[in-house]
């Protein structure tokens, strides 16, 4: 893409965004249609990208655990290598979301196949190509909401109802890393000093709402609103420590 001039780069990005495809695919289609974005998109949608089942099966076998019929930690590590991403990268969460994986660090055959179908990739190259698109999905508010809530079931211990505090804090830091969330650090500190217990699903999902809806100054925090008790305690904690006062003064 670096060889292209700026106009063309822009077109490629547009195509990627609309079609949900990787860079290579974008350039391919644009070339075919003389760099007319509209036409290339129409053409793209007219010719459905089919995945080759055989190729998929091959891919699965590459990562599958030798002893059981599923992909375990080693397979995933290999996958990350192939994709040239860090296993700790948040993109693994998004990929797992596409697969609707039930838990971290393992994929069932079903999950793997269905996930890749959804992403329309059947080779490592195609997969790698799509990485930037997949990463960009985190910026979509609706998708982020889904991914965030999915993360709870995915990251917690299998068979447990709630998520261990450390896991939760790790996940939050990961998820909110790009989002510039002022209160996140305070939230984590608050939990470690005051709460020290597992996080319930309700608290998890309501936290996103809280961060989205309530200003950093907490001016529009409604004590009568049905926020989970833990969040009420958090607000009290903030008030006690005078954390949001600076914003209040500016008001």
């Amino acid at each position, binding site marked *: 893409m670096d060889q292209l001039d700026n106009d063309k780069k822009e077109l490629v990005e547009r195509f990627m965004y609309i079609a949900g495809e990787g860079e290579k695919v974008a350039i391919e289609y644009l070339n075919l249609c003389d760099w007319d974005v509209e036409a290339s998109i129409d053409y793209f949608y007219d010719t459905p990208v089919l995945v080759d089942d055989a190729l998929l099966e091959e891919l699965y076998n590459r990562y599958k655990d030798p002893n059981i019929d599923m992909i375990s930690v080693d397979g995933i590590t290999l996958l990350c290598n192939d994709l040239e991403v860090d296993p700790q990268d948040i993109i693994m969460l998004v990929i797992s979301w596409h697969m609707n994986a039930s838990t971290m660090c393992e994929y069932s055959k079903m999950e793997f196949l269905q996930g890749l179908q959804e992403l329309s990739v059947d080779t490592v190259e195609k997969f790698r190509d799509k990485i930037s698109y997949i990463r960009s999905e985190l910026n979509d508010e609706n998708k982020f909401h889904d991914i965030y809530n999915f993360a709870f079931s995915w990251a917690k211990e299998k068979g447990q109802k709630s998520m261990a505090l450390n896991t939760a804090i790790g996940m939050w830091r990961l998820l909110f890393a790009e989002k510039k969330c002022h209160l996140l650090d305070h939230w984590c500190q608050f939990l470690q000093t005051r709460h020290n217990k597992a996080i*319930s*699903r*309700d608290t998890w999902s309501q936290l996103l709402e809280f961060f989205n809806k309530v200003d950093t100054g907490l001016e529009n925090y409604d004590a009568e609103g*049905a926020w989970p008790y833990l969040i009420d305690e958090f607000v009290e904690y903030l008030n006690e420590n005078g954390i949001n006062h600076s914003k209040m003064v500016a008001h």
Partner: protein
Amino acid sequence: MSNQKKRNFQIEAFKHRVVVDPKYAEKTWSILEHAIHEIYNHNASGLSFEELYRNAYNMVLHKFGEKLYSGLVATMTAHLKEISKSIEAAQGDLFLEELNRKWNDHNKALQMIRDILMYMDRTYIPNTHKTPVHELGLNLWRDNVIHSSKIQSRLLSMLLELVHRERTGEVIDRGLMRNIIKMLMDLGSSVYQEDFEKPFLEVSAEFYMGESQKFIECCDCGDYLKKADLRLNEEIERVTHYLDVKSEVKITNVVEKEMIANHMMRLVHMENSGLVNMLLDDKYEDLGRMYNLFRRVPNGLSTIRDVMTSHLREIGKQLVTDAEKLRDPVEFVQRLLDEKDKYDSIISQAFSNDKTFQNALNSSFEYFINLNNRSPEFISLYVDDKLRKGLKGVSEEDVEIILDKVMMLFRYLQEKDVFEKYYKQHLAKRLLSGKTVSDDAERSLIVKLKTECGYQFTSKLEGMFTDMKTSQDTMQGFYASHPELTDGPTLVVQVLTTGSWPTQPSITCNLPAEMSALCEKFRSYYLGTHTGRRLSWQTNMGTADIKATFGKGQKHELNVSTYQMCVLMLFNNADRLSYKEVEQATGIPASDLKRCLQSMACVKGKNVLRKEPMSKDIGEDDAFFVNDKFTSKFYKVKIGTVVAQKESEPEKQETRQRVEEDRKPQIEAAIVRIMKSRRVLDHNNIIAEVTKQLQSRFLANPTEIKKRIESLIERDFLERDNNDRKLYRYLA
């Protein structure tokens, strides 16, 4: 023959030829005029009614009504002017008498004149819409006499003067007043009002303003109210004697406003004699007077009520927060009851059982009783005291009265579940130690609680009574089937159903051999007849009576707790025992053992044991001996008692914690009930509904409710709505 002229017959109307001589009218009129004069001069006796009537009749008939009427007006007016002058001439007090006399005369005259002129009254006057004779007479009197410049103001000032004199204590001629006032009333309500009533009310207002000012400076509240009452009654009496009845409400309004309304706050808050002092000193008469006077003015009663309420709340608050008074729970509750009795009396004797006052009393009590969170415990202790000894020898009716009063206090409690917990504990102790004065009284109270709170509140309590009864039967059966045991120690077992009795951790200790054998026999007997049950001995709750012989041969019967018995029996086989030995042999937990040993070695009069060293505390290395020198005045000595007492701090915390724990499932049950029927409900409404449902037992904390909701979400009973996070949905 010549032409005959035809003559037209002209038929003319038949003319009644009456000779109407204008002079005739003149003549007739002068007869009548003369008659009027004579009437006014008190010479009416010489007149012929019939003749005069006929004359008037004729005048009207012959269309001289106008003349007659205007003549009447003129003549009467002239006479009235004369009369007016003579009244004016009257001096001083005679003025009113003269006026009165002349008024009477005028009325008599008017009557006669009216009779004479009745035909005119009935025919000419209606046709011409003129004022009828009688009314005319009154109007002329009004215009020429009453409203004459020389009479009008003099009349008014005389009347007011007399009223004033009467108010200052003089006796006046009421009959005369009545007549004059009646005259004004007869002249028309506007005359009465303008010429008397209005000024009268104004002057009265000034008078009472001054009077009230004077009194309030020098009187205390009670005296002032007496005076106000007197004045009010005086005015009412005045009206009945010589004023228009419609004036009553107007004049009483004046008095009420000037004497009461304007000084209400000052009176109520008067130092040393105001409302609060009256309440404190039970001044029923003064209070009743205040009530009756204040109810007449706007906001009067609410003022009294508000002051009473804040006073009550104040003393109530002092009562429940005064550490001194809280030391003895029984006395504390008694004071509450006394206070309630006092105010009930006041309300019934002085405030005529006014419901709004009753409500204010109730809300005040409810307010301050709940300020102290130990109130439920203390009320239960009070009941315990009464049922244990206080009701001894009291008649059945009086017992009911006392229990009803307790119920009344109970109703004020917000935390009824705390009361329940304590009541259960105390009842258990009473039943197990056999210390209840009257079984009937106990049951009666349970019934009352059931009526108030429903079946669930009392079902466990009733279970406790059942257990006691069943145990009796069981013991009978036991001894009946083991006749060989009648010679040995007597065992009395109370079998308690776990759910009904307050939970206690069951710690067993090592019973002396004689007892443990007996207990085992009982256990096998019981389990023989009740398969599938488990028995565990509650050795921390039992008692024992043991006969002891001391060093100098003194014999006593000791009433002790089971633990104490275990310790004492050890000394049958040893003279000296160290603390450790006792601990090991009995297996009694350390803190209980220490208390037990203390009660037997360190308390004067109960020191059946001797301890070395003689310190008050029990040390690990202490040694114990039987106190051979033990003496007591009584043969039977009570050492161990399981009496209900005010809890220590840690115990109190524990109980409260248990109560809080018990509340959680109740809150959850309420939430589930509500959501099951409503299906979808928002946060604030759930909180409100749950609070309402539980309010008969305790005041639910919104934060706690929220936590329970979250717990229910966690367990998939409820979920949040996807779009509105404040909405909850019931998951079937």
